[in-house]
């Protein structure tokens, strides 16, 4: 049995600001993981990744990150993605400060 496909979001860093962005269902880049589109089908995820990677003038380093669906939208399943959506732990900087 192949492993079941873990849900994903498309994520990257914005070209100008360098901060973390996620792809929403309406093709906009959003700053908040809660607004990202959850991809539960592997084929669809690959297509969304290709489309997003083509937008090289907007975002850098596009990839698929694992998430788990939650009541407030997608939740990170790895600590790296948790830090990316929040900001550093030594200062109240980054996304946590702009909420």
């Amino acid at each position, binding site marked *: 049995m192949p492993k079941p496909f873990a849900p994903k979001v498309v994520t990257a*860093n914005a*070209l*100008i*600001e*360098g*901060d*973390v962005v996620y792809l929403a269902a309406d093709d906009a880049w959003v700053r908040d993981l809660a607004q990202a589109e959850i991809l539960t089908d592997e084929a669809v995820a690959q297509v969304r990744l290709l489309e997003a990677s083509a937008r*090289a*003038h907007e975002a*850098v*380093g596009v990839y698929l990150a694992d998430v788990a669906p939650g009541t407030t939208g997608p939740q990170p*399943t*790895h*600590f*790296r993605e948790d*830090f*990316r959506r929040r*900001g*550093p*732990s*030594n*200062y109240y*900087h*980054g*996304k946590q400060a702009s909420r």
Partner: protein
Amino acid sequence: MYRYTDFDTAFLAERNRQFRAQVERRISGALTEDEFKPLRLMNGLYLQLHAYMLRVAIPYGTLSSAQMRQLALLAEKWDKGYGHFTTRQNIQYNWPKLTDVPDMLDALAEVGLHAIQTSGNTIRNVTADHFAGAAADEVADPRPVAELLRQWSTDHPEFQFLPRKFKIAVTGAPNDRAVIKAHDIGIEVVRRGDEIGYRILVGGGLGRTPMIGKEIAAFVPQADLLPYVEAVVSVWNLLGRRDNKYKARIKITVHEHGIDEIRRLVEDRFVETRAAFNGADLEIFDHIRAQFAPPAFRNAPDDVYDAAYATDPVFRAWADTNLTAHKVPGYAIAQISLKAHGETPGDASAEQMRVLADLAERFGHDELRISHEQNVVLPHVHRSDLPKMHKILKAHGLATANIGRISDIIACPGMDYCALATARSIPIAQKIATRFDELKTEADIGELKIKISGCINACGHHHVGHIGILGLDRGGVETYQITLGGDATQDAALGDRTGPGFSYEDIVPAIERIVGAYLEQRESPEETFLQAYRRLGMAPFKAALYDTADAQSEAA
């Protein structure tokens, strides 16, 4: 200090103009990220976890007060009001926008600073002993030769696409404070009779496969230095493993071919490089050296110092840990700790940078140093000025008396900033420092160097920490491995792994148990942690780590 010539200024202006145009072409879409990335890396610009990061070189760790003020300006104008000093004597800005970076580089150029070759597969910022020109044990100031190497390596056409990055460090003293044995090339200034020359080590490095550098030449005369170093890099440039980036560093080349074979190849190549140098490098060296003349030291009474030392216990504690003997009587080398308990190691606010610049101007012959241990050094302070200086430091959170102590921790940015990191480093350093400050045992523990890296690349020098901590991702959980017995000095040694790692929650108690075992088993308070480890070996520390009731309850 070295002053830029018209050539230097014009070179930097042209380079910054080129980078500005490259950024514009990236934004317009004329350059892809794949095309732009090597260009931005050549100019010190990374893309990290939350933002871009600009790494600015501080050549051989030396800054004037005007340069320090400009670093403060950058922090305030284009960052979040602070900068992070690194183990390679660089400063990193964690939050610039891509569109701001060309302006930042122009601002740096105004004071003779740049970010060239602070990244990429090139010869990186040349580092040096942070006590250069001040240390009592020095054969000669290592900075003129570091500057010569900087000029030679900057934009060197043969060395812009090396198999991997290449790091050079120089010490002018037999007591190595520049970790030269953990560099691709380590250079020690030595004397043979009346002649000054250079002992060359090669193939040191930390990272995935840590190696201690090996001697390739015991004495290279001044006239042969650049051609010899060029021969070393040239041999590696051809031989280095471009097929596998984990095997590309010169330490692997030396390991695979053996130091004797590398020496033979270098000596063959040296015949050619030597013939290509015409002596212009020696003229340039003399010109550089003249600019590193010692400042006009003054002769003054220092009874103010003695009085403060006798009556002010806070000053005395600071003087005992943060001052080092200067080669000139009446002077001291003052280390300003950027390791206030609970703060981020190596970070300084713009305000603190300005205070340090003012102090250097007022008391320190206008000179500052950044140490690889992520502290600031005022290398030439008259002892009579120290009490006044200490008062000002205290008022700005800069008077922490902990140099060389358990809270004077080296920590890389780790997963709070770095895209390569596998775990966090900074909060571990903060928690250890805070814990031992609460316990009030720092002074009793004495000299103990903890070094923390957030991944195998070892920017935090964990292999050569008396206690090294390496943060890893084990099955999606931050896990910290401990090594003991590392040494970053002339007696460089790699630490030994204790065994299984510890979780984020358990790493500080684990460090406490190691320190507890040391305090219990040392022969006297004079026996340092490292000496005790060398005498006792791993067993008692391993027992304290894994066999005690505390350890058992953690495992449960």
